[in-house]
C-alpha cells in the first residue's frame, strides 16, 4: 500500500546534508510498523516525504497507487485526508477548541454537518475527552492534547496513521495511553506507522521494526526488538 523506491533526500545549503539514502520500503495494509533510529537518522524526513510536506531528491514514493511527489496542489490535500498525522508537538489549532479541532478534519473533507455532529462526540468519547470538548488547547495537558491530535487523525477513517514521536513530550502514564490508542486503531483496521526513540515501547509492542541510521534502513524485522548500531 505504501512503498518507497530508491528514495534519497539531501539538503543543500552550503554543505550537503544527507537525510535519506536509497531507502526501499514496502508497508502493507493494516500493518503496525515502528520506525527507530538515533536522532538525525532520518525518521522525520521519511514522514515528511510520505505526506508530501517535502519532495524526495531522488526516487519515488507510492501511496495507494499514486506517486506522492507527482500530485497536483489540489490532489495533495486529498491524499492528506487519507493519512492521519500525529506529531510530538501536537499541532492543534490554538484558536479552536477540542471539538472544533476534531470537527475541522471532517469539515475539510467536506462531510455534512449532521454526520460531523454525530461522529465527533463518539470519537472524543473513545479517546476519553468527552468532558473536555469545549476546552482550548492551552487549557489541556500534554497527554490530552495528544489524544485530541489522535482523534483528529483518525476521524476521517484514514488508510494510515503516521505518528512521529507522539510520546516524546509525555510522561510514562500518558505515553502508554497513547500507545494503547494507536494499537486499538490498528486493531480496527488502520495501518499505523510509529516513529519513536523509546526502547520500552518498541520491545513491548513486538511488531515490525524498521531501524534507520544515517539515512539508511539498516534492519527491517517482523516482531523486532530495539537494537541500535
Amino acid at each position, binding site marked *: 500500500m505504501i512503498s518507497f523506491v530508491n528514495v534519497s533526500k539531501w539538503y543543500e545549503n552550503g554543505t550537503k546534508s544527507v537525510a535519506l539514502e536509497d531507502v526501499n520500503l514496502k508497508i502493507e495494509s493494516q500493518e503496525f510498523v515502528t520506525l527507530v533510529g538515533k536522532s538525525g537518522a532520518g525518521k522525520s524526513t521519511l514522514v515528511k516525504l510520505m505526506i508530501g510536506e517535502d519532495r524526495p531528491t531522488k526516487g519515488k514514493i507510492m501511496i495507494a497507487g499514486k506517486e506522492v511527489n507527482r500530485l497536483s496542489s*489540489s490532489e495533495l490535500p486529498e491524499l*492528506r*485526508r*487519507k493519512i492521519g498525522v500525529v506529531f510530538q508537538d501536537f499541532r492543534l489549532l490554538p*484558536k*479552536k477548541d477540542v471539538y472544533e479541532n476534531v470537527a475541522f478534519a471532517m469539515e475539510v473533507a467536506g462531510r455534512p454537518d449532521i454526520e460531523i455532529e454525530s461522529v465527533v462526540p463518539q470519537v472524543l468519547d473513545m479517546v476519553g475527552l468527552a468532558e473536555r470538548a469545549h476546552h482550548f488547547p492551552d487549557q489541556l495537558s500534554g497527554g490530552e492534547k495528544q489524544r485530541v491530535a489522535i482523534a483528529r487523525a483518525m476521524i476521517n477513517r484514514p488508510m494510515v496513521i503516521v505518528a512521529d514521536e507522539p510520546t516524546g513530550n509525555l510522561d510514562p502514564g500518558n505515553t502508554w495511553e497513547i500507545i494503547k490508542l494507536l494499537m486499538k486503531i490498528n486493531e480496527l483496521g488502520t495501518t499505523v506507522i510509529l516513529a519513536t526513540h523509546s526502547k520500552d515501547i518498541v520491545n513491548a509492542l513486538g511488531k515490525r521494526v524498521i531501524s534507520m541510521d544515517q539515512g539508511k534502513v539498516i534492519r527491517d524485522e517482523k516482531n523486532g526488538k530495539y537494537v541500535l548500531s
Partner: protein
Amino acid sequence: MATLFARIFRYGWQNFSRGKWLSAATLIVIVLALIVFESLIVFSVITKTSVALLKEKIDISVYFKPTAPEEEILKIKKAIENLPETESVEYVSRDKALATFKEAHKDDPAISQALSELAENPLSALVNIKAKDPSQYAAIAKGLDNADWRPLTQKITYRQNQAIIERLGKAIDIGNRLGLIITILLTLTAIIITFNTVSLAIYSNRDEIGIMRLVGAPASLISGPYMVEGVIYGVIGAAISLAVFWPAIYWGAPYLKYFITDLDLRAYFVAHIFSLVGYQLLFGIALGVISSNFAIQKYLKI
C-alpha cells in the same frame, strides 16, 4: 457549496473574534487608514470650496465712458463673450448702476441729496467678465486692450488688480497640485502600513496555516476565512472611523465657518452620507481583502 461558504464564514469570524490583541491591532491600523482617507475627503472639500469662492471673487470690470453708445457696448460684450477664455459676461447699464448705487446708499441723506441735485447720471456703464480659469484673465485683459475699443473705455480693473489676480491664480494652481500629492502620499502610506500589518498578522498564523494544510484543508478553506476576516475588518473599521470622525466634523464645522463662510461641512456630510459610508466600506473592505489575499499567497504553496 453552501456548506463550504458557511464554514469559510464561521472560520473567518472565529479567527477575528478569537484573535484578540492581534485583531485589535489590525483593526486600529485599518481605522487609522480610513480616518486618513476621510480627512483627505474633507481636505478636498475645503480646498474645492475655497478655490471656488476665490474664483467667484475674481473678475475684470470694464468701465465705459458716459458718452459710449449702448449698442457699441453691447457689441463689445458680444465680442468678449466669444473669447474662448470667457466664462460669463454681465452688462450693467448706466441706469442700472445708478439704481444699484441709490439702493445701496438710501439711508445716507447726504448722498441721496447730492444725487438728486445732479442733472446727469454720473455713473458709467460697465461689463463684468469672469474667466473659465483664473490663469486666463491675462489673456482676456489683452483682448480688451485693442485700438477699436480704447476710445470707448474709461478704465479696466485688471490693470489695478493684475498682481493679486495672477498670484491667486498661481496659488490655486499650486494648492491643487499640492493637494493631489498629499492625497497620493497619505493614501499610499496608509495602504502600505495596512498591508504590512495584515502580512504580520498572517505571518504569525503561519503555524496554523501549516497545520490546516497537514490536515488536508483545500486552499479555499485556508485562504477564504482570511478574506472574510478582511471584510470584517473593513466593515467594523468603517463603522469605528465614522463614529470617531462624525462627531469631530459636527463640533469642528462651526469653527471652520469662521474662516470660510460659505463652507458648511455638516450639511455637506449630511447630504453625502450614503456615498461617504459607501466609499468607507469600499475602501475598508478592499484594503482588508486585498492585503489578506496578498499576504496569504506565499503560505499556500507546497
